[in-house]
């Protein structure tokens, strides 16, 4: 069975690759390349997979999941400029594809601090950049 919990955060970013020229960046990213950046209200969905406990009927402790996501992700990205304030995006372009990858990596790195004793597993991470665009990555695509 799977359980998905949803979280919101707002952050700004600029899509600009150091490996491309100014013109190539503009051609590739268009308005998202605006040098001053721009922001989104992101919606983050974290999906866990496992079997509900026979006694409690719970697949996982919700508070534990909320703490995992708060400590490993939200506290680092809430109301920040991703390019300037998140080390991973110093070089890596903060497209939502890459954001999904980095978040999954963070969850896996912090996993044992929160779910060491629980058989539940991280299944996937999904991020809505806007209502119309969403990105999804399976946890097993990311090592750590």
């Amino acid at each position, binding site marked *: 069975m799977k359980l998905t919990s949803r979280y919101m955060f707002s952050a700004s970013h600029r899509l600009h690759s150091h490996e491309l020229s100014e013109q190539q960046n503009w051609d590739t990213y268009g308005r998202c390349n605006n040098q001053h950046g721009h922001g989104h209200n992101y919606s983050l969905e974290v999906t866990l997979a496992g079997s509900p406990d026979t006694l409690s009927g719970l697949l996982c402790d919700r508070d534990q999941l909320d703490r995992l996501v708060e400590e490993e992700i939200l506290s680092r990205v809430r109301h920040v400029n991703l390019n300037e304030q998140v080390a991973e995006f110093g070089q890596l372009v903060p497209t939502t594809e890459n954001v999904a*990858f980095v978040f999954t990596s963070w969850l896996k790195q912090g996993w044992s601090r929160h779910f060491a004793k629980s058989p539940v597993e991280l299944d996937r991470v999904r991020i809505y950049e806007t209502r119309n*665009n969403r*990105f999804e990555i399976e946890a097993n695509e990311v090592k750590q």
Partner: protein
Amino acid sequence: MESAPPRQTSKKKKSMLITRRVEFSASHRCAVPGWSEEKNRSVFGPDANPFGHGHNYVLEVTLGGKVDPITGMIVDLKDVKTILNREVVDQMDHRYLNAEVPPFDTIVPTAENIAREIWRRLHPHFNSDDVQLRQVRLYETESLYVEYSGE
């Protein structure tokens, strides 16, 4: 001091799904041409109303692919938007599907058949090594949707 655990670098390509959502509004009538009025009513209910009726359709198109290590993107969303508009929205929005959008002059425009037709139209555009069409989800109302993956 121990060094941080090695991280996967941006250079290794990772598979990911991207979903784009668009809306269009259209009218349709669900009725099989050879059937009697009574038979169509019994199968399709109010959807068989001879004057047609409409929906605000919501289409979610899911593509799969590898993230380009330089741009950090699977596919340019502007291109996706252009293709969805050209192949689907521009042709179906504010139309009476049965009368104006082939093949629904001969095929009943149920949500199932519309989803399959949308798949047929989009598949040639997203069928490369870099990006593939994975799923079409079509909401006829907020409470009902169909999913088709080309099976």
